[in-house]
């Protein structure tokens, strides 16, 4: 009974694919199957996961956000340059500045989409170019090297909450990023499940007009969504900075389509209303494993773009074929418009 129900979930298939894929990599290169590599994967995918959660919420509401990476890099670069020029060395302050910038940039998206009802793709395409252009023109184009970073950031990147010693006495551990990601996921899950706004986000994605007539404040909910994804972009920006201990105002921008792809692979409908957090996490896991481990399999990095594209094309085709068959089974199917 339970098993058949599991078979109807997109997540189960995705999980299966990840398991098979991991098994294949392990056969080719046993290095993959180790706690250390797992911890490393968790640490390096932390920023992407948080960005994916932001994209997920936007997709769930029936929109799309391609500006989230531009916001993240603006947050990161402005926060770190402010900190360096002020001479302070304070981790909470960096997060605070970054999140504040994230909220303000997100609010611009929110006003354009919520108040003026502009189409989300075009709006965020525009703001992405606007934010990034402003950053490069008025804040700076120089990258910040590890040597110039405040100590607290570098420490934060290396900090662990659990450390295990290797055979030779050196240590590796579970990064402090992991609990941050966990809290973010939990808070988002809570908002989506237990608050009026969360219910509204689902409802908006299902049918925006129906949501309005039910009494949801559509303008406010849309404003909230883009501010929230701005906050997430702010957090992700600092995690990314602490991870690579280097800040280049041209990083991150251009990865937004991969993040959207990860979320969509996780089963979130791009037309909104349907999707789960578990699916999002699994989608990010699949894309991250694919990107990080092609080299472990002995394939050069040129294959990366090709494989990610292939996975997206196959993934979305399968999901939509499934949807088509399901709607054909039902007598009053609605999925066969095209």
């Amino acid at each position, binding site marked *: 009974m339970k098993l058949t129900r599991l078979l109807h979930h997109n997540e189960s298939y995705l999980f299966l694919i990840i398991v098979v894929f991991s098994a294949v990599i392990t056969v080719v290169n046993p290095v993959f199957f180790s706690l250390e590599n797992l911890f490393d994967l968790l640490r390096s995918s932390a920023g992407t996961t948080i960005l994916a959660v932001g994209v997920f919420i936007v997709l769930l509401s029936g929109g799309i956000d391609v500006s989230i990476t531009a916001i993240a890099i603006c947050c990161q670069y402005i926060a770190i340059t402010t900190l360096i020029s002020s001479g302070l060395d304070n981790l909470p302050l960096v997060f605070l500045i970054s999140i504040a910038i994230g909220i303000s940039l997100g609010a611009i998206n929110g006003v354009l989409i919520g108040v003026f009802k502009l189409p989300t*793709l075009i709006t965020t*395409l525009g703001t992405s170019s606007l934010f990034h252009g402003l950053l490069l023109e008025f804040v700076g184009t120089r990258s910040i090297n590890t040597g110039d970073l405040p100590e607290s950031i570098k420490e934060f990147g290396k900090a662990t909450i659990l450390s295990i010693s290797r055979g030779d006495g050196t240590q590796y551990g579970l990064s402090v990023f992991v609990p941050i990601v966990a809290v973010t996921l939990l808070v988002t899950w809570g908002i989506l499940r237990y608050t009026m706004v969360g219910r509204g986000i689902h409802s908006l994605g299902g049918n925006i007009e129906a949501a309005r007539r039910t009494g949801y404040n559509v303008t406010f909910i849309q404003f909230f969504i883009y501010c929230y994804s701005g906050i997430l972009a702010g957090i992700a920006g600092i995690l990314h900075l602490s991870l690579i201990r280097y800040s280049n105002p041209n990083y991150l921008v251009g990865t937004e389509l991969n993040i959207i792809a990860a979320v969509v692979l996780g089963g979130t409908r791009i037309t909104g209303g349907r999707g789960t957090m578990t699916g999002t996490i699994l989608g990010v896991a699949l894309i991250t494993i694919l990107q990080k481990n092609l080299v472990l399999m002995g394939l050069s990095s040129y294959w990366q773009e090709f494989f990610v594209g292939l996975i997206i*094309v196959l993934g979305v085709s399968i999901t939509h074929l499934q949807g088509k068959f399901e709607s054909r089974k039902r007598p009053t199917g609605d999925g066969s418009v095209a």
Partner: protein
Amino acid sequence: MKVNIIKEQLGTVIREHPKNLILLMLLVLILILLTVAIPDRFLTRVNLESMAFQLPEFGLLALAMMLAMITGGIDLSVVSIANLAGVVAAKILTSEALASSGLSIPLAVVVVFILSAVCGLLNGTLIAVIGVPAILATLGSQGLLLGIAILLTKGHGISGFPDSFMVVGGGSLLGIPIPFLLFLSMAAVVGMILSRTRQGFCMYMVGTNPVVARFSGISNRRVIINTYLMTAILAGLASLIMISRVNSIRPGYGAAYLLQAILVVVLGGVDPKGGFGSVPGVVMGLFILQLTRSGLNILSFSPFFKKFIWGSALLGIMLLNVLVHRYGEFRRAKAVAKSQVLGEEDEQVSQRTR
């Protein structure tokens, strides 16, 4: 009294073609502004010629984007299609074995069109047969096709094509650059398809309301596949001009064209939701973008500032469209309310003035 008549007639013109008129005024305004701001270097023969060489590549991509948007879709893969086609054409053009036979140029052209048609069929099948939303399908094929292009070249660029091939992107006929002539003829062809053929009419119908179109006996599937086929072939032609103009190709070249193509199409009055848009509007949008780009180049603004300008222009145009639309609705609502209140009185007044 006469002023009133003029006002009324102007009103009808604006009401019937509001966007194109606004565009024309914007075009003239920018032209005047730039000519006044940079008198000695803007309206010169050299600058006009260089603009006519720069415009066609992304002009063709914008026409392609317009076709997809009219049917309510979007094609994020146009630049990738152009990249892949360009890389394959470059491989053929630089191949040693073919160079002596003299067949390399016709072969490259034929292969580019076949290859781009295949890419278009892939997009069309994903969207129309499998039912993947256009944005997702083309997002996937964008990565896939670019990935293939990168695999073919291992990430390097290819350059050094036969001299006779340079005519496509660098030659002139009667003083007019050949790529510009190619662009104009394609714009005319696309315009004819949209306004004079069954396919064009069906594209507007599908874009306005796919369900109604299907129940009116239109084969949405065939219309959409044809649309993405045309889109891809335009991208293929763009790739030929692109590689011939710069005499090299690198996977990822022209990634910035994607945003600019969408910007131009939206600027040109195409509704991203589908069903509306015309070639004259998009061509005017293209001229506006090209004039601005050239002006910013002469004034030596940084590429970052241009990025900022494109982003804000896109948002500004969208906002303006919304505000004009809302104002129109507000006026209509007021007019309706007025005619309801003063129904009889209004009729008497209008009789007297007649």
